[in-house]
């Protein structure tokens, strides 16, 4: 299942630029780079804060070897004192680097996301970090308990007598579910899903962590509001708040209508 990583990676160069810029920003680092290592060959994909790619590559070799040996994200508290890196031009040049902390991850996901994300990347070349797919998955996970609870309540709300009568009438369990349970429960399930959607729309933390805040790519509505407020663009923020409010209120009203008892009379 392993894909031709090189071809795949070169198609993602633009995303890599985004990632290094973002990483350098988040960690307030002077240098951020993505290196691709295959068959002992170090290949600089993209970098910020680097002059002279050749010498940079030469000096990062030590970093890469140590990082590969480490299962997690490698954090070096003080690169000047650390025996592995003391003397390395990249870390010892105090004039260039104010903070002597190195944080190196050996996959393009910067070590965020844990084993599942790393496995997806290793086995299928699927990268979720800083993609809109990642944002979707993060929001889904956050909203799932809400949808699950609503669906469970809806299924429990179906009078067991209807399921029993269908069984006595000779229907298989599958037919009972499809023709009786589901039709009697779908309104509750749909209402729950809509609430879950509203919840996902307002999702902030998980999205920001997994997908980041890349305008036009992974920026969600609620992150855009935060961004606009931070940047002092109040009229943009106000507009976006009105948009979310209208959408959420519409959803709440609609789900309330769906949950009204239907077969009265």
């Amino acid at each position, binding site marked *: 299942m392993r894909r031709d990583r090189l071809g795949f990676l070169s198609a993602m160069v633009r995303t890599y630029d985004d990632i290094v810029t973002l990483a350098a920003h988040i960690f307030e680092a002077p240098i951020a780079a993505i290196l691709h290592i295959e068959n002992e060959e170090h290949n600089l994909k993209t970098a910020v804060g680097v002059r002279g790619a050749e010498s940079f590559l030469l000096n990062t070799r030590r970093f890469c070897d140590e990082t590969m040996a480490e299962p997690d994200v490698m954090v070096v508290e003080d690169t000047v004192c650390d025996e592995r890196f003391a003397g390395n031009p990249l870390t010892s040049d105090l004039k260039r680097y104010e903070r002597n902390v190195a944080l190196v991850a050996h996959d393009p996901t910067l070590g965020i996301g844990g084993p599942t994300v790393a496995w997806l990347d290793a086995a299928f070349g699927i990268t979720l970090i800083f993609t809109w797919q990642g944002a979707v998955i993060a929001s889904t996970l956050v909203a799932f308990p809400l949808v699950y609870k609503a669906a469970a309540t809806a299924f429990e709300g179906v*009078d067991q*007598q209807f399921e029993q009568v269908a069984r*006595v009438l000779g229907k*298989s369990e599958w037919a009972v579910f499809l023709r009786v349970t589901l039709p009697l429960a779908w309104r509750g399930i749909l209402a729950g899903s809509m609430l879950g959607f509203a919840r996902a729309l307002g999702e902030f933390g998980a999205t920001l962590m997994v997908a980041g805040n890349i305008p036009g790519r992974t920026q969600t509505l609620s992150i855009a509001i935060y961004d606009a407020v931070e940047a002092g663009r109040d009229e943009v923020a106000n507009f976006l708040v009105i948009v979310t409010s209208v959408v959420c209120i519409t959803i709440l009203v609609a789900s309330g209508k769906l949950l009204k008892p239907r077969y009265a009379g």
Partner: protein
Amino acid sequence: MRIEVSVRTTLRSKAREFRLDVEFTCQDDVSVMFGASGSGKSATLRAIAGLEHPDSGRIVVDGRVLFDSARGIDVPARMRSVGYVFQDYALFPHLTVEENVALPVNPWWRRRPARDVAKRVRDLLDIFEIGNLSQSYPWQISGGQRQRVGLARTLIRKPAILLLDEPFAALDPLLRIRMRQELLNTQWLFKVPMLVITHDPQDVAALAENLVVLRRGRVERTVDLKGPPYRDEKGIPVRGVIRQLLMETSVESNGTQEQLPLRAVR
């Protein structure tokens, strides 16, 4: 046509425990199981339909063993070919009359009646004189009409036996008299044996050829009512059975009979 029922089980609710130990056979067109609320008649009927699984016992309908704890037989409800009409008929509220009646014989992926099913449904609805209601929903029709739909839905599969749980309890008294006659007509028309449970002595008087009286989870007696003189299982003549039942029920309903919902102990 012969039904053999022997069922032993313990039903339990928070407040009490209830032992059900019922054994009877009947081979008439219409048998009635009579008892006050909480006497165990519903539980017995549910066991015959396969909705409850007794601790031990044996249920045979028309020579077919549906349940036999000794041999480990417990035929699932859907394969028992037993018709069961619930007390409030349990018509599916999301389906029209036509779709309700078609459901037992329709393939699972269809909601509307399949082509070959549609004609059977129409004929059956015409027999029950509710053909004009085929597109109505259950909540739009009257109690008597609902019962007819419930009967049609059950009979479309030609069950070996028809179990009716308090079929007239949901109807007003005037309608009951007419629906009892209708039920007998249905029995005659479809030639399907019936086992009716009731706590109304009038039902016994109108329907029963064979009477099983249940009391506190046990068969108190069985009476052959096919014609006077009535005799009980020992061949001893019984007079005024119905009047006696009337008196007994009035006594029991004044008593301390609990009506808590019961659950089978697994």
